[in-house]
């Protein structure tokens, strides 16, 4: 740009203006530097062209919707494959019960609201959860019903238990249920709580 001082032997041009003792060379822009700029610009143009003008690639939201739908399908399939018998069997498997106990006792998980002894009371104080060591079940006491509550949470989440499906996953949920079931016997009487929501009532009555 500035060629006031032609440089015969490739010496850098020193501009003649001096600012408070500061002088400036007028070196050429480094090529590698220019190329990083050009490449970034080219990348912008090509990527934009591909996405907007050629319509390549999927949008974020569509891609997400698809993945989540697939996962939900897989979850539903897993759900269908579980039966009461399997869960009772699992509750007699010491390894599974032990793993379930570990999850249950993890600070911040089940133990926080249901207490270490499943009584939902700690040192006489009532905890937010319901007792799991008696025979009264608000949302149904069949293994599959307990399983469902752990996965999905109570019908009205703000009034009861949170959903643990995404936090724990299928395997750990069944282990926790096995741990709870290990405090019970197959065939013991199940009573409904007075405040059982109507949606759960028919299932429990069955």
């Amino acid at each position, binding site marked *: 740009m500035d060629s006031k001082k032609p440089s015969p032997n490739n010496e850098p041009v020193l501009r003649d203006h001096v600012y*408070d003792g500061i002088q400036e060379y007028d070196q050429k822009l480094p090529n590698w530097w220019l190329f990083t700029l050009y490449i970034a610009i080219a990348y912008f143009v090509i990527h934009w062209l591909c996405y907007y003008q050629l319509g390549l690639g999927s949008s974020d939201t569509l891609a997400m919707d698809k993945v989540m739908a697939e996962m939900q399908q*897989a979850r539903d399939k897993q759900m269908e494959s579980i039966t009461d018998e399997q869960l009772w069997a699992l509750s007699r498997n010491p390894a599974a019960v032990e793993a379930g106990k570990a999850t249950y006792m993890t600070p911040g998980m089940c133990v*926080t609201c249901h207490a270490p002894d499943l009584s939902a009371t700690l040192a006489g104080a009532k905890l*937010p959860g319901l007792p799991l060591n008696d025979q009264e079940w608000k949302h149904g006491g069949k293994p599959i019903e307990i399983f469902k509550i752990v996965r999905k949470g109570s019908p009205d989440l703000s009034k009861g238990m949170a*959903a643990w499906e995404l936090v724990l996953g*299928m395997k750990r949920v069944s282990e926790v249920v096995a741990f709870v079931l290990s405090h019970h016997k197959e065939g013991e009487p199940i009573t409904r709580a007075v405040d059982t929501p109507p949606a759960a009532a028919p299932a429990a009555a069955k």
Partner: protein
Amino acid sequence: MTSTAASKVPIEFNDKVVRQFMLASIIFGVVAMLAGVFIASQLNYHQLNLAEWLTFGRLRPLHTNAAIFAFVGNMMFAGIYYSTQRLCKCRMGNDTLSNIHFWGWQLIIVAAAITLPMGLSRGKEYAELIWPINIAVAVIWVVFAVNFFLTLHKRNEPSLYVALWFYIATIVTVAMLYIVNHLSIPTSWTHSYGIFGGVQDGLVQWWYGHNAVAFFLTTPILGIMYYFLPKAAERPVYSYRLSIVHFWSLVFLYIWAGPHHLLNTALPKWLQMLGMFFSLMLWAPSWGGMLNGLLTLRGAWDKLRTDPVIKFFIAGVTFYGMCTFEGPLLSIRAVNSLSHYSDWTIGHVHSGALGWNGFMAAGMFYWLAPRLWNTKLYSVPMANFHFWIGTLGILLYVVAMWISGIMQGLMLNQVTADGLAVQNTFLDTLQAIRPLMGLRVIGGGMFLLGWLVMCVNLWKTIRSGTPVNEVREVAVLQHGKTDTMGMKETFFNDPLACTFGAMLLILGWIFLPPGADIASLICACVFGYMAVRRFQKTSHTWANWYDRLLQNYLPFTVLTFVAVVIGGLIQIIPTVTVNSAKNVEDRVQKLYEPLELAGRDIYVSEGCYNCHSQMIRTLVPDVMRYGEYSRLGESIYDHPFQWGSKRTGPDLAREGGQRPNSWHYEHLMDPRSMSPQSNMPPYAHLNTKAFDQKTLPRKIAVLRQLGVPYPPMDATEIKMKALEQGVKIATDLKISNIVVRPDSEMVAVIAYLQKLGQFEQPAVEEALTHKGQGVPFPLSPVIPDSARRNGSQ
């Protein structure tokens, strides 16, 4: 080129104000770093949340504001006042203005230091200060600007040196950013609602936030580098034309990059794409600054061994290079999906703030102190110790944050074997990074230690000398040749015609409907080729024009403003006009009931957003952990938006209705009772205070003014509604044997938390969903997302 020197007159520089700013910066540097070390410790030791006003949420804004505005701000002013007087060969414009600037700025800092711990906050990062202080900042900034431009006006040096270009860009751009992002309507003397809400607020906030980094922490410091580095190295600057190219590309591109803080969020994709690509394009211009700094040292590298000033400058510039390489990297959407909301970003900003700003400041102070007090530096070994402990400190800090950010990111993304559930709870990942958060305290502590050593060193230096104001014989410039450029000469010339022509065509490519966009792109390529050919043929006239421009400070300032305003206009105007509640076709959030609004304001003032985001990104791990991805409309009425920028705790976008009120109560009283090993501060004080009923009607009135569709309600109605809801929650808590006052802040916050994530689905009107018309005429601009071929956005 040089004007005729008529007479030489002695001029005394105003070095007193430089000394004042320098000392203020040193002192506030200590404050900012102390606050940093303290809040970093709180992350591991929740017990350090000693009192309501010492909680992390309130002190983190204090730390960031102190570091940016008090520490770097004062440092910048010291550097600008010192160098501008010398580069203009005249005293600062007006001594009274200099004084008002200095004392006004310190008063603002004191006001900030009082109000932030009190919980008075606007709830937007680096823009937390309440509106009366905002006005003070704007006024003082204008005082600074007037003082600066007065100096340029009466300068005795015809041409503007590159350092001044950067100062001009700083002054003009910060004013623009600050004012737009702080536009708000007061509801009381200490509270206001910003005029933008939801996605608009997000975009404006990060346009501001990112460019606070660019034009408050970068351009002024680059200007300072351009003055002090060649002075200290006693070598010519590496390349004048690199200065030109990197200055103009930097100020033009930087403004566009803001949306990279909102990648993978509900921000429209075209803005995310612009944010990402402009960040990538910004890499080279940023490195231009680094090159001009580092390569200036060619032939003087031996000074690196002996001169602590050079050591600090070179390390500072190197950190700048590292930071501006990391920045574009983090702006890539795929990288960002891991790094964002994590400690990686924290490490990134600190390599900038400590490495670049901190070291440039230290180098400048070591250079200035002997000159301003006419003495010698007290101890070079102490300065060397400062350098090494500081460098080690930053490296420890940054590396710890890299590991922490990547590890926590990976752990949060881990899924169970069947791929259907997340593997780790948020608390698991928190425990994993605790040792790294400890290392960070040590690294930051080392940097602080170095800084304190500098304080002692400079104190001893100052004590050994006496303050002097430099007096110089200066040839008075005969005005006549400079500052004569008119509109025509400024705007109608080859360089501008080529630049604007190309830019318009590129914009046509981005915003024109299908068909016309491609045509515009082809035209842009042809036009660009022709422009380059023309430049090659007539580069002399281009260079001469630029030399002329440098002798005309007002046209230069106007062109700088044009360069920085374009990016913001193009991103913000479409967002404000299109992405408003009435255009949302997807979900729209439910209005906050009065009590919930009161709770929200408490959430904002406690600074919960410092640790909790409210934005579930379009990423599988986010959706698996927190629920469906957030829609643009789900926060459209939020003034301010609370999408957050860091997850020290989990996302709260869909927290509402997930847990009983009693859980929230226990958790707020003592977070560890519900979430063992959590590092959240306790909020028991919410239980003892009543929420602010008095200003609620005014608040709702202001929100109505801002377009939030509240039905008309009178004051008693609003208060009654709030109390009714409070009673409901208190009654519900009573079942769990918890007694709370129905008018307590606790109840309000619980009401707010339970509301998060509630939305309505408006009826979609078919007529509104217009697809591409097929015919590209008439050429009205369209949002790229809606014109995309092959499927919706």
